[in-house]
């Protein structure tokens, strides 16, 4: 927009021929401050082809711009774009609405939704029931295990007690027997005693351990 407005601004005419050429044009009061294009627009020739001899003095200028018309046109464009954007928003809302409705319709009618909800509720109930049963079972299992552990512990304890009792009995027995042991102090007294009381071990024993009173020879 700015270059177009700059073109409208009256400025020094670069060539006197320009003023004559313009003459009584559509905007005679304006002597626009244009500058001729340095490089011509491309057509049949490439950038490396030189311009023709007939175009030596040619000066190409951009089309004239009326500032009032330009402002009017810009205002019209602004309003046009406003309306266009409003329409686009409208159409977008329409498309989204249609998509939403389609989705709801695809999801199913009222009865289907009701049935879906009922089935979901039933499923939840079933899950709760199963969960209760499972928890019951787990609880019982835990109790069983605890009881078993207790039993084992008790058994162990009893075994230990029995063992300890046995050992104590042995110890007591040994203590009892220790009274009859021959010690260094008793040694001489016991030897005297044995020598004083001779015992006769000259007997036979049968297989059962009884003393045999009768021999075969008699």
């Amino acid at each position, binding site marked *: 927009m700015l270059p177009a407005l700059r073109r409208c601004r009256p400025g020094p005419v670069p060539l006197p021929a320009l003023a004559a050429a313009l003459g009584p044009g559509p905007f005679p009061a304006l002597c626009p401050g244009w500058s001729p294009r340095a490089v011509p627009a491309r057509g049949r020739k490439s950038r490396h082809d030189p311009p023709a001899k007939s175009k030596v003095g040619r000066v190409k200028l951009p089309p004239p711009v009326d500032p009032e018309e330009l402002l009017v046109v810009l205002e019209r464009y602004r309003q046009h774009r406003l*309306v266009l954007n409003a329409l686009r928003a409208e159409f977008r809302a329409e498309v989204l609405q249609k998509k939403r409705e389609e989705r709801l319709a695809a999801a199913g009618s009222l009865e289907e939704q009701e049935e879906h909800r009922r089935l979901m509720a039933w499923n939840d109930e079933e899950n709760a029931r199963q969960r209760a049963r499972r928890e019951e079972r787990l609880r019982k299992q835990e109790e069983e295990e605890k009881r078993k552990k207790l039993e084992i512990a008790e058994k162990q304890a009893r075994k230990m007690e029995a063992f300890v009792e046995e050992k104590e009995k042995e110890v007591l027995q040994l203590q009892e027997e220790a009274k009859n042991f021959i010690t260094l102090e008793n040694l001489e007294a016991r030897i005297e005693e044995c020598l004083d009381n001779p015992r006769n071990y000259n007997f036979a024993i049968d297989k059962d351990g009884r003393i045999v009173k009768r021999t075969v020879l008699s």
Partner: protein
Amino acid sequence: MVQLGSCLLRGRGGNVVIRFALGGCTNRPFFRIVVANSRRPRDGKYLEQLGCLDPLPNAHGEKVAGLNLERLRYWLGCGAQLSRPAEKLLGLAGFLPLHPMTVTAAERLRRQRQREQQPEASPADSTAGPGTDTAPGTDTAP
């Protein structure tokens, strides 16, 4: 034959445009109003055809165009851009507001026609005036 379609569309993002695709024969153009990716060739593969336009006037002097407004609304709602001639056509059809340049061009044409008429009128008036003055002069002269 190398199919360039998906390579074109996946390199850098293009956008969906509603534009004219030229068809027909030599000296007989025919436009199809078409929704396509902007990076496709003008007459190449398009998403959907929304109408057609015959630029040459028919026996009754009318230029006939057909439009599918329902699908047009859908594509505009999906965010399709419009090419300038497509906008102008839809403005003239009444679906969209008139394009500013349509109005401006009409105004310029009207002004030009008025300017052409005024020089015709003023020389005619100026020639009529002296003409009427001289005619009695010549008549009166013996």
